[in-house]
C-alpha cells in the first residue's frame, strides 16, 4: 500500500485538471463530487498507509518511495521521491482528512456561486501542492509545494475578484509571501552551497540531516534563520503576519482549509521536518520561540477587540501559529505538531462554523449585528462552542492537551518567560473566543428584519463536516494525554523516529507528575477565568453579576487609547505602508520609466549641460561646437532623411545608450588590464 503513495497527490491533481477544463460544462453537483471524491480517495489511501506504518517496527517507519530520477546534475542526483514517515503520514492525514470535509462543506457553501468549477479546481490544486510539500523526500519537492500553495492561496483569496478588496488581499498575500519565500530560497541555496563545499551536494533530507553536524554553526544558524524567514511569511508571524487577516476576503472554506488548517502550518511543518538542523542551531531556536510567543501574544491582543467574525478567527489563527512556533523553537517538536493537528480540527471547525453563520446571515460578518443565533441554528452553535472550548483549553477537549503540553514543555525546559506569556495568551484566547460565542449565538438578534427572516440552519453538506470536526476537536487530543505511558504520550512514541535525532529530543517528564498536574490546573483556571470574564461582559444572564467597569462600552471608554490601538491593529498596516510599501512604489515608479526615463534624464541633463556650456562659452561659435560635437553621431544622422518620416525620435537615444554601454565595457576591460 505504501507504494501507492504517489496516488495521494495525483488524485487531487486529476480532479483539479478535470474540473478546470471540463468543469464549466458539468453540473454543479458533479463538480462537487469530482472535487470531493478526489480528496476523499486520497484520504482513504492515506489512512491505509497510516495503518501500514503502524504495523512496522518504530525504526522502520521511515520509507522513501522513489518514483523516478528527477534530475542529475554535476554529481548531484535528485529523485522525484516521497518520504513516508510518522510526520508526513500525520500531515497527509490532516490535509486530506480536513481537506475532504472542507470540500464537502464547500459544495454546499459555494453552491450559488457561478464559478464553482473554478473554485474546486483551485481547491484541488491546492491540496495537490500541499501534499507535495509534506510528502516530498527532498527540499526541491518541498519547494515545489511551497511555491504552489502560495500560488493557489493567491488565486483563492482573490476568488471573488469582483470585490476589489479581495483582489487587493490576494495581491497582499502574494507579495508578503514572496518576501518570505525569498528567504526560504536563499536558505535553500546556502544549504546547497555549504553541502557542496563539504562534498555532500544533495538536497535529500536523509543526506542533508546526515551531513548536518559538519556544517559550521554560524552557517547553520544562518540557513535555519533564512528558512524561518520563509516560515514567517507562510505562517503569518511577526513581522509578516499582515496578509493573513486580509486573506479572510476569500471564501470561508478557503479560510478554513488554507488559512487555518493546512497552508499556514507549512512553516511549522518545515521547522519540524528540519528538526535536526534546528536542534543544532540553538540561537535560531530562541529566535523562533521568541517570535512565536511574541506573535501569539500580539495577535491575541488584537483579537480581543475585533468585531468581524472571521477577523477574530484570523488573529486567533496567527496567535495559535505563534504557539506552535514557540513549541518547535524550544525543541518541543511533538508538542508543536500536536498543536498543529488539534488546531486543524478546532480552527477548521470554527471557520466552517463561522461560514455557516455568514451563510445564514446573508453574508453579514459583523458580530455586532448578530446575536441569538443559537435558537436558529443549533448544530452550528453547539459545534462552534465545542471548538471554542477546545481552543480555550478546557479539558478534555483537544486544544487543552496540545496547548498544555506546549506550556509544560516550556516550563520544564526552563523557558519560564515563554510559559508565562503563553499562559497569558491562553487567557486572552479564552476571553475573545467566548466573547465571539456570546456575541454571535446568545442574546437578542441585532440583525435587520430581512436578514432575521432569512436565518436558517445550513444544509446537511455543511453541518455534517461540522459535526465530524467537532467530534475530532473533542477527542483528537486523546493521543496526547500524558501519564499513561512510561515514555511520554502516545504521540511522542509515534514521533520518536522523526524527532529523536534532534539534540533536544523530548524525554518523558522527569520532573514528576505532581508539578505537571499543578500547572495543568493553573492553565485550566486561566482558561476558565477568560471565559468567565467574557461571560460577565457579553453574556446577558451573567451580566447582572458583573461589576460596572466590566461593561464593554465602559471599558472601551476608560481604556480608549489602548482600545483604539488594538482596534486598529497597532497601525501595523499603516506603518508598513509608510515605511516600506510607499517607498517601494516610488522606487518602482523610477524603474517603471527607466527605459524612457533615464534617457529623458540624460537628455535633460544634457540640456542643462548645454545651457551651462552656453553660459561659459558665450562667444563660442555655436555652429562649430555643434558640428564638432555631433561628429560622433555621424552614422546616426546619416539616416535622418529617413527618420523624419518615421517620426520616432528615439532611435538616437537608443544609439546613445548603446554607445555609453560600449564605452563602459571597453573602459572596464581596459581598466582591468
Amino acid at each position, binding site marked *: 500500500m505504501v507504494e501507492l503513495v504517489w496516488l495521494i497527490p495525483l488524485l487531487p491533481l486529476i480532479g483539479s485538471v478535470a474540473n478546470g477544463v471540463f468543469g464549466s460544462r458539468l453540473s454543479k453537483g458533479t463538480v462537487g463530487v469530482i472535487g470531493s471524491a478526489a480528496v476523499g480517495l486520497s484520504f482513504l489511501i492515506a489512512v491505509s498507509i497510516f495503518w501500514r506504518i503502524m504495523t512496522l517496527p518504530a525504526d522502520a517507519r521511515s520509507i522513501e518511495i522513489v518514483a523516478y530520477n*528527477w534530475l542529475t546534475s554535476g554529481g548531484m542526483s535528485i529523485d522525484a521521491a516521497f518520504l513516508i514517515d510518522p510526520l508526513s503520514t500525520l500531515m497527509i492525514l490532516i490535509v486530506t482528512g480536513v481537506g475532504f470535509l472542507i470540500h464537502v462543506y464547500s459544495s454546499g457553501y459555494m453552491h450559488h456561486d457561478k464559478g464553482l468549477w473554478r473554485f474546486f479546481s483551485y481547491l484541488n490544486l491546492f491540496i495537490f501542492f500541499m501534499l507535495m510539500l509534506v510528502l516530498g523526500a527532498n527540499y526541491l519537492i518541498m519547494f515545489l509545494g511551497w511555491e504552489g500553495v502560495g500560488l493557489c492561496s493567491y488565486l483563492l483569496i*482573490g476568488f471573488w475578484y469582483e470585490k476589489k478588496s479581495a483582489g487587493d488581499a490576494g495581491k497582499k498575500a502574494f507579495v508578503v509571501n*514572496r518576501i518570505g519565500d*525569498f528567504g526560504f530560497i536563499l536558505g535553500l541555496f546556502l544549504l546547497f552551497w555549504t553541502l557542496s563545499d563539504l562534498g555532500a551536494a544533495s538536497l535529500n533530507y536523509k543526506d542533508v540531516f546526515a551531513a548536518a553536524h559538519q556544517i559550521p554553526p554560524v552557517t547553520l544558524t544562518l540557513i535555519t534563520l533564512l528558512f524561518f524567514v520563509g516560515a514567517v511569511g507562510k505562517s503569518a508571524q511577526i513581522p509578516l503576519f499582515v496578509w493573513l487577516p486580509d486573506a479572510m476576503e476569500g471564501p470561508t472554506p478557503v479560510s478554513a482549509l488554507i488559512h487555518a488548517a493546512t497552508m499556514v502550518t507549512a512553516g511549522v511543518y518545515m521547522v519540524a521536518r528540519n528538526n535536526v538542523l534546528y536542534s543544532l542551531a540553538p540561537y535560531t531556536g530562541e529566535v523562533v520561540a521568541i517570535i512565536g510567543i511574541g506573535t501569539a501574544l500580539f495577535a491575541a491582543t488584537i483579537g480581543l477587540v475585533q468585531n468581524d467574525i472571521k477577523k477574530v478567527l484570523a488573529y486567533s489563527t496567527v496567535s495559535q501559529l505563534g504557539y506552535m512556533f514557540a513549541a518547535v523553537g524550544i525543541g518541543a517538536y511533538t508538542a508543536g505538531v500536536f498543536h498543529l493537528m488539534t488546531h486543524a480540527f478546532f480552527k477548521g471547525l470554527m471557520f466552517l462554523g463561522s461560514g455557516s453563520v455568514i451563510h445564514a446571515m446573508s453574508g453579514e460578518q459583523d458580530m455586532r449585528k448578530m446575536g441569538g443565533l443559537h435558537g436558529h441554528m443549533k448544530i452550528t452553535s453547539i459545534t462552534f462552542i465545542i471548538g471554542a472550548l477546545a481552543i480555550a483549553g478546557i479539558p478534555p477537549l483537544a486544544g487543552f492537551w496540545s496547548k498544555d503540553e506546549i506550556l509544560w514543555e516550556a516550563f520544564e525546559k526552563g523557558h519560564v518567560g515563554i510559559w508565562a506569556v503563553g499562559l497569558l495568551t491562553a487567557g486572552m484566547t479564552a476571553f475573545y473566543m467566548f466573547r465571539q460565542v456570546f456575541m454571535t449565538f446568545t442574546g437578542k438578534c441585532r440583525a435587520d428584519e430581512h436578514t432575521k427572516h432569512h436565518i436558517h440552519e445550513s444544509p446537511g453538506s455543511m453541518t455534517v463536516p461540522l459535526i465530524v470536526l467537532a467530534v475530532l476537536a473533542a477527542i483528537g487530543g486523546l493521543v496526547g494525554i500524558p501519564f499513561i505511558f512510561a515514555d511520554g504520550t502516545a504521540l511522542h512514541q509515534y514521533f520518536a523516529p522523526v524527532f529523536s535525532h534532534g539534540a533536544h529530543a523530548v524525554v518523558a517528564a522527569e520532573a514528576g507528575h505532581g508539578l505537571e498536574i499543578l500547572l495543568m490546573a493553573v492553565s485550566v483556571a486561566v482558561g476558565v477565568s477568560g471565559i468567565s470574564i467574557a461571560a460577565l461582559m457579553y453574556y446577558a444572564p451573567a451580566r447582572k453579576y458583573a461589576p460596572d467597569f466590566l461593561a464593554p462600552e465602559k471599558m472601551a471608554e476608560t481604556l480608549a487609547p489602548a482600545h483604539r490601538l488594538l482596534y486598529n491593529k497597532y497601525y501595523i498596516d499603516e506603518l508598513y505602508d509608510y515605511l516600506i510599501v510607499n517607498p517601494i512604489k516610488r522606487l518602482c515608479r523610477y524603474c*517603471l520609466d527607466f527605459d524612457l526615463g533615464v534617457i529623458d534624464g540624460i537628455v535633460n541633463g544634457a540640456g542643462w549641460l548645454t545651457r551651462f556650456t552656453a553660459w561659459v562659452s558665450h562667444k563660442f561659435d555655436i555652429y562649430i561646437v555643434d558640428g564638432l560635437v555631433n561628429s560622433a553621431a555621424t552614422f546616426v544622422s546619416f539616416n535622418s532623411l529617413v527618420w523624419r518620416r*518615421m517620426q520616432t525620435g*528615439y532611435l538616437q537615444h537608443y544609439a546613445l545608450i548603446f554607445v555609453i554601454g560600449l564605452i563602459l*565595457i571597453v573602459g572596464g*576591460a581596459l581598466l582591468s*588590464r
Partner: protein
Amino acid sequence: MNLASLNINIYSLLPLLMVVGLALFVLVLDFFIPRGGKRALGYVSALGLVCILPFVPMFIETVPSYAGFVIADTYSAFFNVVFLVSSAFAIFISIDYLRRLGSESGEYYYIMLFATAGMMIMASANDLIGLYVGLELMSMSFYILVALRPGKGAEGALKYFVLGAMSSGILLYGISFAYGFSGTTNVNEMAAIVYRLPDNNTYLYLALALIGAGFAFKIAAFPFHVWSPDAYEGAPTPVTALLSVGSKAAAFAVFLRVFAVALPAFHGQWSDMLWVISAATMIFGSVVAIPQKNIIRMLAYSSIAHAGVILMGIVVNSSAGASAVLYYSLVYAFMNVGAFTVAALASRGDGGEQLTDLRGLASRRPWLAFFMALFMVSLAGIPPTAGFMAKFFVLASAVHAGYYWLAVIAVISTAIALFFYARVIFYMYMRDYEGAELPERSLFTCVTYGVVLILTAVGTLALGVYPSAILDIAVRAVGPLFTI
C-alpha cells in the same frame, strides 16, 4: 592551398543545405502560387523543417571542415534542433496570423527559412568570419521580417536595423582585434595562440570587450537591449517568437563557442565582464517588465531577464554551465513560443496585444488560459515546469563554480519576475472581460494553433518532470567544447 587541406565535407553541411534548399524551393514555388493560396507555402516550409529535423543528429562530424570554418559537432546539432523546432513552430502559427493581418505572402516564409539557415550557420561556425556571415544572414532576414507587419513593423525594423548595423560594426571591430593578436580567425587556432599571450595584451582586452558587446546586443543584454522591446512589439508576433528564441539561442551558441573554446585561457578576464552584464540584465529585465501594459513588451523584458540568467551559464565556463545553457535554450524555445502563440491568438488582431485583452480568458477559453498559465508558471521558474529545471541547472552550475553572489542576484531577479508573470494569470483568471467577444475561430485555426500549443505545453511539462534525458544529451553535446 591545396583542396585536400580544405577538408570539403558535404555531410557536415547537409542539414543546413537542406534548409537552404527548402528556402529556395519555397522561393521558386512562390511564383506559381496565386495570391490567395500563399498559406500552402507555410505548410511546405513548416513540414519541410519537421522533415529535416531527424537528419540533424545523423550528421555529426567532429573534424572541422571547409578550412576549419564549419564544425558539425554534437553541440551545433543540439542547437540546430532548437532552431528547427522553434522555427517550425513559428511558421506554423504564422499561417493563421498572417491571414488575420491580411498580409499573406510567400517571401515571409522563405525569409524565415533563411533566418533559420543563418542561425544554423552560427551554431556550426568554427571561425569568427563564418560566425559573422551567419549572424548577418540571420539579422538581415530578421530586419525584413520585422518590417513585414503593416503599420508598426517599419518603425521597429528601422530601429533594429540601425542598431543592429552598429552592433555588427562593433563585433567586426572586435574580430579585427582578435585577428590582430592571433593572426587567425579560427577558434581552435586562436585558442592555441591565446595560451601564449601575456596577461595584459591590450588587443585581447579590446577584442573581448567588443566581441562581448556585439554578442550582448544579439542576446539583448543590458545595456544593449534597447532595440528589443520596440522590435518585438513591431514585428509580427510569430517573428517575435522566433526572434526571442531562435536568434537568442544562436547568439548564445556562438557566445559559448567563442568564449569557451577560443578564450578559455582568459576566463578570469571575460567572466568578470559577463558577470556584470549578466547581473545587470537579470535585474533590469525583471524590474522593467513589471509596469508593462503590452503583453509583447512584457515578454520582451522577460526575455531580457532570461538572457541574463542564461548568460550565467556562460560566465561559469564549465561543462555543467554550458549544458545548462543548452538545456535552457531548448526549454525557453518551448515556453516562450507557447506564450507568444497564446498572445497572438488572444489579441483581437488589430495589433494591440494589451495585457487587458487577456481578461477573463479562463472563462472564455479555458484551454487557452490553462496553456498560458502553464507557460507563465514555467517562465517564472516554478516547479514542476521546465522553466524551473532550466533555472535550477544554471544556478546549480553557478553555485558549483563558486559564483554565489551571481546566484543570489539571479534568485532575487526570479523572485521579482514572478510578479509580472502572476499578473498575466491574475488577468486571465480573476478579471472579467468587457467589450467585444473574440472572433470565432475556424477549425483550421484551432488545428494549427492547437498543434503548436499542445506540443509546446507537453515540452514545457515533460522537460520539467523528466529532465534527465535531455540534460544527458546536453551534457554530451557540450563535450566537444571542453575536451580541447
